[in-house]
């Protein structure tokens, strides 16, 4: 059974409907990748899971329980961790305070144990430990946001365009780490990407989202050769 399941979801923001009858399954030990052009509704899909968007009908089930109507912080407490595309760090807190607060739901010492692991992955964060996160560059902020997700020991990880702004060496590092998380911890990961090819290479399952509709669901390799995918992405990237 899938750990996270979205069933026939219609959602949006207030009167603006964005998603139409979207269904998605994220299974344990699997990397699920959602690709699609800008404005397709990828972020809205994650926002519907984490309790930010308005859900008109349909259901989100996590770990066998419906979480459709729960407030945001309760959904987080169930173990759903999301690195949003925007606004994913606290600019007025220092780097270390950001990491500390990311592990708000865990015992303090357990969070601190994770710091070294995170600093190993992104040494820059260690150097800037006591700097306000607002002074970091775009790439460094993205690293901090990923670090914050790792500090949380979630049951599922939702990542929205995390490779944007990252230098190529870090893109590889981050994607390698995601594969590691799946293999070592069995963590299910939902990866949303506009620049799709690299993400699809590490994916176990793929979805193509266009104008709020699921156009493809299945094997990521096949999606790379799918006519609609080439139509959308050839010439784009």
């Amino acid at each position, binding site marked *: 059974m899938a750990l996270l399941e979205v069933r026939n979801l219609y959602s949006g923001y207030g009167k603006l409907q964005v998603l139409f009858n979207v269904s998605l399954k994220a299974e344990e030990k699997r990397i699920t990748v959602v690709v699609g052009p800008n404005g397709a509704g990828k972020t809205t899909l994650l926002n519907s899971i984490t309790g930010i968007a308005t859900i008109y009908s349909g259901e989100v089930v996590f770990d066998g329980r419906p979480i459709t109507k729960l407030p945001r*912080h309760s959904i987080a407490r169930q173990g759903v961790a*999301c690195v949003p595309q925007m*606004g*994913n*760090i*606290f600019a007025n807190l220092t780097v270390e*305070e950001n990491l500390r*607060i990311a592990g*708000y739901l865990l015992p303090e010492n357990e969070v601190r144990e994770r710091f070294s692991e995170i600093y190993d992955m992104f040494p820059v964060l260690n150097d800037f430990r006591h700097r306000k996160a607002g002074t970091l560059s775009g790439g460094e902020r993205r690293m901090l946001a990923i670090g914050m997700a790792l500090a949380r020991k979630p049951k599922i990880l939702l990542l929205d365009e995390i490779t944007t702004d990252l230098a190529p060496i870090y893109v590889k590092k981050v994607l390698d780490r995601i594969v590691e998380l799946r293999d070592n911890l069995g963590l299910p990961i939902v990866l949303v990407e506009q620049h799709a090819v690299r993400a699809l290479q590490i994916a176990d399952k793929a979805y193509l989202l266009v104008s709020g509709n699921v156009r493809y669901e299945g094997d990521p390799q096949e999606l790379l050769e799918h006519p609609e995918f080439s139509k959308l992405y050839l010439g784009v990237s």
Partner: protein
Amino acid sequence: MSLVYITTRTYNFVLASMLAWGFYIVFTLTHLYGGTPYYYVPVAALFSGLLGLITYFGVNRRLLKTKANETTLMMSTLGFDLILYGFLNVFSDYLVNVHKIPAKFFVLETKDITIDLGGLQVRAIGLVALITLVIAVMTLNTFLTKTRLGIAMRAAIENPELAGALGINPEVVYVLAWFVGGLLAGLSGGLLSLLTVGYTAVGMTIMVIFFAGALVGGIYSIFGSLLGGLLVGLGEYVGVYLMSTYIGGWISAYRPVFPLIIMAIALLTLPEGLISLPWGKLLKVWKIGGVKK
């Protein structure tokens, strides 16, 4: 003041009543049970903290839920303040009529302890107020930067949505802010009762200084508003003193206007508040200057 504003977007007029209640609690308890007024300052602080909670749960929370705008929130605290003010008047009437305590105007100065500083007789309140202020600021600062709950509070202030996504319940933060805000107001009221005359509307008068202080210092910053409060308070004394020596004693009747003048000047020159000054640079210049000497 700033604490409540930045967390719940609410200019908090209730602080006026909290201050005044602080005055009255210290006064009444001193009268009824004797001893020095200092014993009762913590009671006043706790009582006002409780008032903060009542305000939050009774008024502010519901309005925040309906996404009321800032003006509505501000007016609601003004309204609630008037209610509390009414109760305070009732309470003082009760003291006068039932307990025969002169509670319309009172002075607690005489109950202050004098301490001997090498032959110099000083009233304790100045020292106590200073120490309390330093301790309060240090405690607040440690709380906000060192404890996880404090950091969570700052996080929820900056970005409630992200804080929620991390599992922080914003409600906890609001409740805490109102309680601590009330606590500090009661504490100030309790201590101030040893410094100035107490009457039921005393809160409003002092609020003007606080409010001006917060605006001068920068309403978004706790340190800024403390600095601003200090500046406005000092400015008022010094200003009135200078004016009355050079212009004449009559000017001191206009004393409550001074904070407003300072506020106006500050807002015209530094609209973001004192905190917007490049303090880091100023400190550096200062240090370098010190070394050169």
